[in-house]
């Protein structure tokens, strides 16, 4: 049985069709990335799956008893509420102090456990939210734009982190992302959403499909593919230094970097 099965899901809001006949499944250990332009219904789909949004037609079936870890989009923390990172985590699934420290350690932010939630950086905040999502050792993780507001190096790191957590827990992952190029390496399947699922499959296939190109434009294919290989070549550590794993020539790297720059301005 699949971990998550979505079939014929249709959502209408104020007579507009937000989601149209959505079908897909997630298996244990599989990372599925949902991409699509702004307003494509990505967050609505997540809300339907989590049971936060009523929909008109279709079914969402989650394997009975499966633990779910959810990471919302960026969080606004009210200044008037004094709270430490550790206390914030303790509001989530039942956990001991050691569990929480272990979760923070897993996402490499254990040094801020006792810091006020308001004083941590955007990247740290995303990691804290991720720590809260893995606190109950979930079988299904649902991450809504986990890398939002994080710089490019940080994003790549975060996606690698998601991938390695998946490897450890063997959980299925549904992840939302704006664009594909950074997530590609960490994804088994891509669903391209624009109210309906316009194409799906392995990241390589999707980027070559006509539907994908019609939404994201052809000019983005090459930089993305370049970036894809680039991310298999090396990683960035916390200080942003390159750590080479393969044998890329300096020339290729320079090229892929310039492509990323170009894409950012496009």
């Amino acid at each position, binding site marked *: 049985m699949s971990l998550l099965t979505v079939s014929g899901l249709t959502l209408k809001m104020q007579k507009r069709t937000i989601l149209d006949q959505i079908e897909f499944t997630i298996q244990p250990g599989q990372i599925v990335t949902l991409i699509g332009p702004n307003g494509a219904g990505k967050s609505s789909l997540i809300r339907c799956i*989590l*049971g*936060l949004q009523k929909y008109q037609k279709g079914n969402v079936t989650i394997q009975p008893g499966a633990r*779910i870890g*959810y990471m*919302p989009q960026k*969080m606004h*923390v*009210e200044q*008037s*509420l*004094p*709270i*430490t990172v550790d*206390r*914030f985590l303790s*509001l*989530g*699934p039942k956990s001991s102090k050691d569990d929480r420290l272990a979760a923070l350690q897993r996402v490499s932010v254990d040094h801020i456990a006792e810091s*006020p939630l308001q004083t941590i950086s955007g990247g740290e905040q995303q990691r804290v*939210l991720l720590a*809260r999502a893995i606190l109950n050792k979930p079988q299904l993780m*649902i991450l809504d734009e986990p890398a939002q507001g994080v710089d490019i190096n940080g994003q790549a790191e975060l996606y690698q982190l998601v991938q390695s957590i998946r490897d450890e827990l063997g959980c299925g992952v549904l992840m939302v992302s704006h664009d594909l190029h950074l997530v590609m390496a960490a994804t088994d399947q891509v669903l391209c959403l624009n109210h309906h699922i316009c194409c799906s499959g392995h990241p390589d296939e999707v980027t070559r499909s006509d539907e994908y190109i019609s939404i994201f434009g052809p000019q983005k294919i090459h930089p993305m593919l370049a970036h894809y290989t680039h991310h298999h070549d090396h990683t960035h550590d916390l200080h942003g230094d390159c750590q080479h794993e393969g044998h890329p020539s300096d020339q290729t790297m320079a090229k892929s970097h310039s492509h990323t720059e170009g894409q950012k301005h496009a």
Partner: protein
Amino acid sequence: MPEFMLYALLGGLGIALMAGPLGCFVVWRKMAYFGDTLAHSALLGIALGLLLEINLMLAVTAGCVLLATSLVILHSRTIAMDTLLGIMSHTTLSLGLLVTAMMDDVRIDLMAYLFGDLLSVEPFDLYWIAALSVIIIGLLVKLWQGLLSITLQPELAAAEGYKVQWLQWILMIMIAVVIALAMKIVGILLITSLLIIPPAIARVLSKSPEQMAVIATLFGMLAVCSGLAGSWFMDLPAGPAIVTSAGMMFLITHSLVRLIQGQQN
């Protein structure tokens, strides 16, 4: 100490006990205007209570609870919450004034309701305050995690299984009850300050939400004691005396904290 003074003191302390933690949520969730709206509607409750000849505190409590509920129901995407609150606040206040104006045979002392009247606190009110303090503190302890969760991140709380709307409604009802109970002691126009000032003092002194709730309660109680003392020894009106002493404490603590932080830097 005369009996009425003892009643006022006990009643005031009971209210401060509830207002501390609930006031924290008012501050965290930016609900000050909500408090004002409920307070303004209290006059309508008083008028209707006099008209129907039922206990005023019961009438006001019922009125506030009803208003809080109707706010939840009327709340929609097309009208912003502050607009809705503005409409309800002034409509209910005006309606209250109209009803009182139409009652020829009853003379009511508006000033007493607007600014509080210690002499009006009766033993029955005290039982009422005691019973509701127990219920509200019990509810707060039981629902604390959930209330904090929906305040920090409602989406996450909902995904983790908390009933967000139900918790919001319970919170509003509890605030409505405290406002209704505090009416006799501090008065309609000053109630919100009792909810806001003690948490605002506590904020700079606390590192956790629980600490803030406890410190706010203590400062609320201190304000009630010093205000009533001022009323007793200097013949000041009680409501304004309580609120003024809370305001002074706010100024003093914030100045001191600034001063200490300034020296550290």
